[in-house]
Protein backbone atom coordinates (compact mmCIF):
# COMPACT_ATOMS: atom_id res chain seq x y z
CA UNK A 1 0.00 0.00 0.00
CA UNK A 2 1.34 3.39 -0.92
CA UNK A 3 -0.10 6.87 -1.02
CA UNK A 4 1.74 9.54 -2.92
CA UNK A 5 1.32 12.92 -4.48
CA UNK A 6 3.32 14.23 -7.36
CA UNK A 7 3.50 17.94 -8.18
CA UNK A 8 0.17 18.48 -6.53
CA UNK A 9 -1.42 21.87 -6.47
CA UNK A 10 -4.59 23.05 -4.86
CA UNK A 11 -6.74 26.05 -5.53
CA UNK A 12 -9.33 27.32 -3.08
CA UNK A 13 -11.58 30.26 -3.76
CA UNK A 14 -9.54 31.10 -6.85
CA UNK A 15 -6.29 31.28 -4.93
CA UNK A 16 -3.41 28.89 -5.23
CA UNK A 17 -2.89 27.42 -1.78
CA UNK A 18 0.11 25.26 -2.63
CA UNK A 19 1.75 23.95 -5.76
CA UNK A 20 4.37 21.40 -6.79
CA UNK A 21 3.92 19.43 -3.64
CA UNK A 22 5.49 15.96 -3.53
CA UNK A 23 5.00 13.41 -0.83
CA UNK A 24 4.95 9.68 -0.52
CA UNK A 25 4.07 7.37 2.31
CA UNK A 26 3.93 3.60 2.66
CA UNK A 27 2.09 1.11 4.82
CA UNK A 28 3.12 1.45 8.45
CA UNK A 29 4.37 4.99 8.04
CA UNK A 30 3.17 8.27 9.41
CA UNK A 31 3.51 11.67 7.81
CA UNK A 32 3.18 14.76 9.97
CA UNK A 33 2.23 17.98 8.19
CA UNK A 34 3.63 21.11 9.72
CA UNK A 35 3.72 24.73 8.76
CA UNK A 36 2.38 28.12 9.66
CA UNK A 37 -1.34 28.95 9.75
CA UNK A 38 -2.81 29.10 6.30
CA UNK A 39 0.03 27.12 4.73
CA UNK A 40 -2.35 24.52 3.35
CA UNK A 41 -2.13 21.57 5.73
CA UNK A 42 -5.87 21.15 6.05
CA UNK A 43 -6.26 21.74 2.33
CA UNK A 44 -3.84 18.91 1.57
CA UNK A 45 -5.78 16.52 3.79
CA UNK A 46 -8.98 17.53 2.05
CA UNK A 47 -7.43 17.06 -1.36
CA UNK A 48 -6.33 13.56 -0.41
CA UNK A 49 -9.80 12.82 0.91
CA UNK A 50 -11.37 14.05 -2.30
CA UNK A 51 -13.17 16.89 -0.54
CA UNK A 52 -11.24 19.43 -2.58
CA UNK A 53 -10.26 19.04 -6.19
CA UNK A 54 -6.71 18.44 -7.29
CA UNK A 55 -6.18 21.41 -9.54
CA UNK A 56 -2.92 20.09 -10.92
CA UNK A 57 -0.59 17.16 -10.43
CA UNK A 58 -1.29 13.59 -9.56
CA UNK A 59 -2.48 11.78 -6.49
CA UNK A 60 -1.83 8.03 -6.39
CA UNK A 61 -3.08 5.36 -4.09
CA UNK A 62 -1.92 1.76 -4.54
CA UNK A 63 -3.69 -0.83 -2.54
CA UNK A 64 -7.33 -0.17 -3.25
CA UNK A 65 -9.48 -1.11 -6.17
CA UNK A 66 -8.90 0.96 -9.24
CA UNK A 67 -12.20 2.69 -9.57
CA UNK A 68 -12.73 3.54 -5.95
CA UNK A 69 -11.67 6.86 -4.48
CA UNK A 70 -9.24 7.05 -1.57
CA UNK A 71 -12.10 8.20 0.61
CA UNK A 72 -13.43 4.65 0.65
CA UNK A 73 -10.26 3.51 2.41
CA UNK A 74 -9.82 6.49 4.66
CA UNK A 75 -11.04 7.94 7.89
CA UNK A 76 -11.07 11.69 8.36
CA UNK A 77 -10.99 13.58 11.63
CA UNK A 78 -11.76 17.21 10.89
CA UNK A 79 -12.29 20.21 13.12
CA UNK A 80 -16.00 19.63 13.01
CA UNK A 81 -17.03 16.62 14.97
CA UNK A 82 -19.99 15.37 12.91
CA UNK A 83 -22.09 14.54 15.94
CA UNK A 84 -25.69 15.35 16.75
CA UNK A 85 -26.35 17.05 20.07
CA UNK A 86 -29.81 15.47 20.18
CA UNK A 87 -28.42 11.92 20.17
CA UNK A 88 -26.57 10.24 23.00
CA UNK A 89 -22.89 9.45 22.78
CA UNK A 90 -23.66 5.83 22.06
CA UNK A 91 -26.33 6.55 19.45
CA UNK A 92 -23.96 8.87 17.66
CA UNK A 93 -21.25 6.25 17.49
CA UNK A 94 -23.73 3.55 16.55
CA UNK A 95 -24.92 5.58 13.57
CA UNK A 96 -21.44 6.06 12.16
CA UNK A 97 -20.63 2.45 12.81
CA UNK A 98 -23.69 1.36 10.82
CA UNK A 99 -23.10 3.90 8.11
CA UNK A 100 -19.55 2.72 7.55
CA UNK A 101 -20.56 -0.90 7.44
CA UNK A 102 -20.16 -2.02 11.01
CA UNK A 103 -17.77 -1.69 13.91
CA UNK A 104 -17.96 -2.21 17.62
CA UNK A 105 -19.16 0.89 19.48
CA UNK A 106 -17.70 -0.50 22.68
CA UNK A 107 -14.20 -0.25 21.21
CA UNK A 108 -14.68 3.45 20.56
CA UNK A 109 -15.95 4.08 24.05
CA UNK A 110 -13.08 2.20 25.65
CA UNK A 111 -10.37 3.74 23.52
CA UNK A 112 -11.00 7.14 25.05
CA UNK A 113 -12.59 6.21 28.37
CA UNK A 114 -16.03 7.39 27.36
CA UNK A 115 -17.90 4.41 28.82
CA UNK A 116 -19.51 6.30 31.62
CA UNK A 117 -20.67 9.03 29.26
CA UNK A 118 -22.29 6.57 26.86
CA UNK A 119 -25.85 7.48 27.71
CA UNK A 120 -25.21 11.23 27.87
CA UNK A 121 -26.58 13.44 25.17
CA UNK A 122 -23.68 14.70 23.06
CA UNK A 123 -24.77 18.29 23.74
CA UNK A 124 -23.58 18.02 27.32
CA UNK A 125 -19.99 17.12 26.55
CA UNK A 126 -17.09 19.46 27.16
CA UNK A 127 -14.83 20.51 24.29
CA UNK A 128 -12.30 17.77 24.95
CA UNK A 129 -14.94 15.11 25.47
CA UNK A 130 -16.42 15.97 22.08
CA UNK A 131 -13.03 15.60 20.50
CA UNK A 132 -12.60 12.20 22.14
CA UNK A 133 -15.96 11.15 20.81
CA UNK A 134 -14.83 12.04 17.29
CA UNK A 135 -11.53 10.24 17.71
CA UNK A 136 -13.42 7.21 18.95
CA UNK A 137 -14.38 6.51 15.35
CA UNK A 138 -10.76 5.63 14.66
CA UNK A 139 -10.89 2.74 17.10
CA UNK A 140 -14.24 1.52 15.89
CA UNK A 141 -14.06 1.56 12.11
CA UNK A 142 -11.35 -0.40 10.38
CA UNK A 143 -9.78 1.51 7.52
CA UNK A 144 -6.16 1.66 6.45
CA UNK A 145 -5.68 5.40 5.87
CA UNK A 146 -6.14 7.89 8.67
CA UNK A 147 -6.33 11.60 7.87
CA UNK A 148 -6.16 13.58 11.09
CA UNK A 149 -6.49 17.34 11.28
CA UNK A 150 -4.91 18.55 14.53
CA UNK A 151 -6.14 15.50 16.40
CA UNK A 152 -4.88 16.48 19.85
CA UNK A 153 -6.67 19.80 20.05
CA UNK A 154 -8.51 20.07 23.34
CA UNK A 155 -7.39 16.69 24.67
CA UNK A 156 -6.06 16.31 28.19
CA UNK A 157 -2.77 14.52 28.83
CA UNK A 158 -4.37 11.12 29.45
CA UNK A 159 -6.33 11.22 26.23
CA UNK A 160 -3.27 12.24 24.24
CA UNK A 161 -1.58 9.09 25.57
CA UNK A 162 -4.54 6.99 24.48
CA UNK A 163 -4.44 8.54 21.04
CA UNK A 164 -0.73 7.78 20.76
CA UNK A 165 -1.35 4.17 21.69
CA UNK A 166 -4.04 3.97 19.06
CA UNK A 167 -1.85 5.52 16.38
CA UNK A 168 1.09 3.28 17.18
CA UNK A 169 -1.12 0.23 16.95
CA UNK A 170 -2.48 1.38 13.62
CA UNK A 171 1.05 1.80 12.28
CA UNK A 172 2.01 -1.65 13.53
CA UNK A 173 -0.96 -3.02 11.65
CA UNK A 174 0.48 -1.49 8.47
CA UNK A 175 -1.85 1.45 8.41
CA UNK A 176 -1.04 4.88 7.04
CA UNK A 177 -1.44 8.08 9.06
CA UNK A 178 -1.27 11.61 7.78
CA UNK A 179 -1.77 14.20 10.48
CA UNK A 180 -1.48 17.96 10.71
CA UNK A 181 -0.37 19.52 13.94
CA UNK A 182 1.24 22.52 15.56
CA UNK A 183 2.49 20.65 18.57
CA UNK A 184 4.36 17.42 19.00
CA UNK A 185 2.26 14.31 18.46
CA UNK A 186 4.86 12.08 20.10
CA UNK A 187 5.00 9.30 17.50
CA UNK A 188 8.54 8.00 17.05
CA UNK A 189 9.75 7.57 13.52
CA UNK A 190 7.16 9.76 11.87
CA UNK A 191 8.21 11.61 8.75
CA UNK A 192 7.63 15.34 8.73
CA UNK A 193 6.52 17.37 5.77
CA UNK A 194 7.20 21.03 6.37
CA UNK A 195 5.17 23.54 4.36
CA UNK A 196 7.80 26.19 5.00
CA UNK A 197 10.40 24.28 2.98
CA UNK A 198 8.01 22.03 1.05
CA UNK A 199 10.27 19.10 1.95
CA UNK A 200 9.76 15.84 3.72
CA UNK A 201 12.45 15.54 6.36
CA UNK A 202 13.54 12.18 7.66
CA UNK A 203 12.35 11.35 11.08
CA UNK A 204 11.05 13.12 14.06
CA UNK A 205 12.12 11.96 17.47
CA UNK A 206 9.15 12.98 19.43
CA UNK A 207 10.54 16.40 20.20
CA UNK A 208 8.64 19.59 19.70
CA UNK A 209 9.78 21.17 16.47
CA UNK A 210 7.52 24.13 17.40
Amino acid at each position, binding site marked *: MELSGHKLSCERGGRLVFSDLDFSIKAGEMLVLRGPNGAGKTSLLRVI*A*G*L*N*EVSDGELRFDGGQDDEPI*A*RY*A*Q*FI*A*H*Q*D*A*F*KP*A*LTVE*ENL*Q*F*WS*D*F*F*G*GGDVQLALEAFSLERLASFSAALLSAGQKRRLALGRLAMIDRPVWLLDEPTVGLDAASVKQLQTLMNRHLENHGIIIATTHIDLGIKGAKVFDFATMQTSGQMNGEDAG
Partner: protein
Amino acid sequence: MKMLWALLKRDLVLSWRQGGGVGTAFGFFLTVIVLLPLGIGPDAGVLQRIAPGGLWIALLLSVLLSADQIYSTDYEDGSLELMTFGAVPLEVVSAIKSLAHWLTSGLPLAIAAPLLGFLLNLDTSLVFPLMGAMVLGSVGLSFLAGLGAAVTVGLRRGGLLVSLLVLPLYVPVLIFGISAGGAGTAGPDITAASFAILFAITLVILVVAPFGSGAALRAYMR
Protein backbone atom coordinates in the same frame (compact mmCIF):
# COMPACT_ATOMS: atom_id res chain seq x y z
CA MET B 1 -29.35 -1.90 3.30
CA LYS B 2 -28.32 -1.59 6.89
CA MET B 3 -26.62 1.69 6.07
CA LEU B 4 -29.73 3.11 4.49
CA TRP B 5 -31.85 2.01 7.38
CA ALA B 6 -29.40 3.57 9.84
CA LEU B 7 -29.62 6.82 7.95
CA LEU B 8 -33.40 6.80 7.81
CA LYS B 9 -33.70 5.90 11.46
CA ARG B 10 -31.35 8.65 12.49
CA ASP B 11 -33.28 11.29 10.60
CA LEU B 12 -36.57 10.12 12.01
CA VAL B 13 -35.23 10.12 15.57
CA LEU B 14 -33.68 13.54 15.12
CA SER B 15 -36.82 15.09 13.74
CA TRP B 16 -38.74 13.58 16.60
CA ARG B 17 -36.41 14.87 19.30
CA GLN B 18 -35.60 18.28 17.92
CA GLY B 19 -38.55 20.58 18.28
CA GLY B 20 -41.18 17.94 17.84
CA GLY B 21 -41.02 17.41 14.06
CA VAL B 22 -44.52 16.35 13.14
CA GLY B 23 -46.04 18.40 15.93
CA THR B 24 -44.77 21.75 14.79
CA ALA B 25 -45.46 21.17 11.11
CA PHE B 26 -48.94 20.33 12.18
CA GLY B 27 -49.17 23.46 14.29
CA PHE B 28 -48.06 25.63 11.46
CA PHE B 29 -50.56 24.02 9.20
CA LEU B 30 -53.35 24.64 11.68
CA THR B 31 -52.42 28.26 12.04
CA VAL B 32 -52.50 28.91 8.30
CA ILE B 33 -55.92 27.31 8.21
CA VAL B 34 -57.00 29.63 11.01
CA LEU B 35 -55.58 32.71 9.34
CA LEU B 36 -57.31 32.04 6.03
CA PRO B 37 -60.87 32.71 7.24
CA LEU B 38 -59.58 35.65 9.26
CA GLY B 39 -57.97 37.16 6.22
CA ILE B 40 -60.71 36.34 3.79
CA GLY B 41 -63.79 36.79 5.88
CA PRO B 42 -66.15 34.19 7.30
CA ASP B 43 -68.50 33.86 4.30
CA ALA B 44 -69.22 30.11 4.21
CA GLY B 45 -69.78 29.98 0.45
CA VAL B 46 -66.49 31.65 -0.42
CA LEU B 47 -64.67 29.51 2.11
CA GLN B 48 -66.12 26.29 0.75
CA ARG B 49 -65.12 27.34 -2.70
CA ILE B 50 -61.51 28.03 -1.81
CA ALA B 51 -61.16 25.21 0.73
CA PRO B 52 -59.26 22.64 -1.39
CA GLY B 53 -56.94 25.30 -2.74
CA GLY B 54 -56.38 26.73 0.71
CA LEU B 55 -55.58 23.31 2.13
CA TRP B 56 -53.14 22.60 -0.68
CA ILE B 57 -51.39 25.92 -0.18
CA ALA B 58 -51.14 25.34 3.55
CA LEU B 59 -49.72 21.87 2.93
CA LEU B 60 -47.25 23.23 0.46
CA LEU B 61 -46.01 25.97 2.74
CA SER B 62 -45.71 23.65 5.73
CA VAL B 63 -43.64 21.17 3.77
CA LEU B 64 -41.53 23.95 2.35
CA LEU B 65 -40.90 25.60 5.68
CA SER B 66 -39.44 22.51 7.23
CA ALA B 67 -37.29 21.89 4.17
CA ASP B 68 -34.21 23.93 4.91
CA GLN B 69 -33.55 21.78 7.93
CA ILE B 70 -33.11 18.65 5.85
CA TYR B 71 -29.41 19.18 5.28
CA SER B 72 -28.43 22.27 7.22
CA THR B 73 -27.27 20.72 10.48
CA ASP B 74 -25.57 17.84 8.70
CA TYR B 75 -23.74 20.34 6.56
CA GLU B 76 -22.69 22.54 9.42
CA ASP B 77 -21.43 19.87 11.76
CA GLY B 78 -19.44 18.07 9.07
CA SER B 79 -21.67 14.99 8.88
CA LEU B 80 -22.26 15.42 5.16
CA GLU B 81 -18.54 15.59 4.47
CA LEU B 82 -18.01 12.49 6.51
CA MET B 83 -20.73 10.73 4.55
CA THR B 84 -18.69 11.06 1.37
CA PHE B 85 -16.32 8.53 2.96
CA GLY B 86 -19.01 5.88 3.08
CA ALA B 87 -20.19 3.42 0.48
CA VAL B 88 -23.53 5.18 -0.03
CA PRO B 89 -23.50 7.77 -2.82
CA LEU B 90 -24.75 11.23 -1.95
CA GLU B 91 -27.65 10.80 -4.37
CA VAL B 92 -28.94 7.93 -2.27
CA VAL B 93 -28.27 9.80 0.93
CA SER B 94 -30.39 12.66 -0.27
CA ALA B 95 -33.16 10.34 -1.41
CA ILE B 96 -33.28 8.79 2.06
CA LYS B 97 -33.26 12.16 3.75
CA SER B 98 -36.11 13.39 1.57
CA LEU B 99 -37.99 10.21 2.36
CA ALA B 100 -37.53 10.88 6.07
CA HIS B 101 -38.80 14.38 5.53
CA TRP B 102 -41.87 13.04 3.78
CA LEU B 103 -42.55 10.57 6.57
CA THR B 104 -42.28 13.23 9.23
CA SER B 105 -44.00 16.15 7.58
CA GLY B 106 -45.51 15.50 4.15
CA LEU B 107 -47.39 12.30 4.92
CA PRO B 108 -48.92 13.20 8.28
CA LEU B 109 -50.12 16.52 6.95
CA ALA B 110 -51.51 14.98 3.79
CA ILE B 111 -53.60 12.67 5.92
CA ALA B 112 -54.63 15.31 8.43
CA ALA B 113 -55.34 18.17 6.03
CA PRO B 114 -58.56 16.89 4.46
CA LEU B 115 -59.83 15.92 7.88
CA LEU B 116 -59.25 19.47 9.02
CA GLY B 117 -61.07 20.67 5.94
CA PHE B 118 -64.27 21.07 7.95
CA LEU B 119 -62.72 24.22 9.40
CA LEU B 120 -63.02 25.67 5.91
CA ASN B 121 -66.39 24.05 5.14
CA LEU B 122 -64.80 21.57 2.80
CA ASP B 123 -67.38 19.55 0.90
CA THR B 124 -67.39 16.17 2.72
CA SER B 125 -67.52 14.18 -0.51
CA LEU B 126 -64.12 15.64 -1.36
CA VAL B 127 -62.32 14.47 1.77
CA PHE B 128 -61.07 11.12 0.51
CA PRO B 129 -60.20 12.10 -3.06
CA LEU B 130 -58.32 15.06 -1.63
CA MET B 131 -56.48 12.81 0.79
CA GLY B 132 -55.41 10.48 -2.01
CA ALA B 133 -54.17 13.33 -4.15
CA MET B 134 -52.36 14.91 -1.22
CA VAL B 135 -50.61 11.74 -0.13
CA LEU B 136 -49.33 11.22 -3.67
CA GLY B 137 -48.52 14.87 -4.26
CA SER B 138 -46.74 15.33 -0.96
CA VAL B 139 -44.08 12.81 -1.99
CA GLY B 140 -43.15 15.12 -4.82
CA LEU B 141 -43.33 18.15 -2.56
CA SER B 142 -40.92 16.63 -0.04
CA PHE B 143 -38.43 15.60 -2.69
CA LEU B 144 -38.58 19.03 -4.32
CA ALA B 145 -38.15 20.60 -0.91
CA GLY B 146 -35.08 18.41 -0.47
CA LEU B 147 -33.70 19.61 -3.78
CA GLY B 148 -34.27 23.21 -2.76
CA ALA B 149 -32.60 22.59 0.57
CA ALA B 150 -29.59 20.96 -1.08
CA VAL B 151 -29.19 23.81 -3.53
CA THR B 152 -29.11 26.37 -0.73
CA VAL B 153 -27.39 24.38 2.02
CA GLY B 154 -24.22 26.45 2.17
CA LEU B 155 -26.00 29.78 2.32
CA ARG B 156 -26.70 31.27 5.68
CA ARG B 157 -29.97 32.92 4.77
CA GLY B 158 -31.07 29.96 2.69
CA GLY B 159 -34.59 29.83 4.07
CA LEU B 160 -36.18 32.30 1.76
CA LEU B 161 -34.14 31.41 -1.28
CA VAL B 162 -35.41 27.86 -0.94
CA SER B 163 -38.91 29.22 -1.29
CA LEU B 164 -38.10 31.23 -4.34
CA LEU B 165 -36.44 28.29 -6.05
CA VAL B 166 -38.91 25.62 -5.08
CA LEU B 167 -42.27 27.29 -5.39
CA PRO B 168 -42.15 27.45 -9.20
CA LEU B 169 -41.46 23.73 -9.15
CA TYR B 170 -44.50 23.25 -6.94
CA VAL B 171 -46.81 24.83 -9.51
CA PRO B 172 -47.46 21.69 -11.58
CA VAL B 173 -47.95 19.56 -8.48
CA LEU B 174 -50.43 22.08 -7.15
CA ILE B 175 -52.43 22.33 -10.37
CA PHE B 176 -52.72 18.62 -11.01
CA GLY B 177 -53.07 17.91 -7.32
CA ILE B 178 -56.10 20.12 -7.11
CA SER B 179 -57.79 18.67 -10.15
CA ALA B 180 -56.85 15.13 -9.10
CA GLY B 181 -58.53 15.91 -5.78
CA GLY B 182 -61.77 16.30 -7.70
CA ALA B 183 -62.26 19.97 -6.94
CA GLY B 184 -63.69 22.36 -9.45
CA THR B 185 -66.23 21.52 -12.10
CA ALA B 186 -64.20 18.75 -13.70
CA GLY B 187 -65.83 15.39 -14.38
CA PRO B 188 -64.48 12.03 -13.17
CA ASP B 189 -62.52 11.52 -16.43
CA ILE B 190 -60.48 14.60 -15.89
CA THR B 191 -59.96 13.71 -12.26
CA ALA B 192 -58.56 10.32 -13.23
CA ALA B 193 -56.36 11.80 -15.94
CA SER B 194 -55.04 14.40 -13.52
CA PHE B 195 -54.27 11.68 -11.04
CA ALA B 196 -52.28 9.82 -13.67
CA ILE B 197 -50.38 12.96 -14.60
CA LEU B 198 -49.72 13.74 -10.94
CA PHE B 199 -48.31 10.25 -10.65
CA ALA B 200 -46.07 10.81 -13.66
CA ILE B 201 -44.85 14.13 -12.33
CA THR B 202 -44.06 12.52 -8.99
CA LEU B 203 -42.02 9.86 -10.77
CA VAL B 204 -40.07 12.51 -12.66
CA ILE B 205 -39.37 14.30 -9.42
CA LEU B 206 -38.28 11.10 -7.70
CA VAL B 207 -35.65 10.65 -10.39
CA VAL B 208 -34.52 14.22 -10.92
CA ALA B 209 -34.46 15.52 -7.35
CA PRO B 210 -31.92 13.09 -5.83
CA PHE B 211 -29.51 13.62 -8.71
CA GLY B 212 -29.82 17.38 -8.50
CA SER B 213 -29.43 17.26 -4.74
CA GLY B 214 -26.40 15.00 -4.88
CA ALA B 215 -24.68 17.27 -7.39
CA ALA B 216 -25.50 20.36 -5.39
CA LEU B 217 -24.23 18.88 -2.13
CA ARG B 218 -21.03 17.85 -3.80
CA ALA B 219 -20.57 21.35 -5.18
CA TYR B 220 -20.91 22.83 -1.73
CA MET B 221 -18.30 20.54 -0.30
CA ARG B 222 -15.60 21.76 -2.64
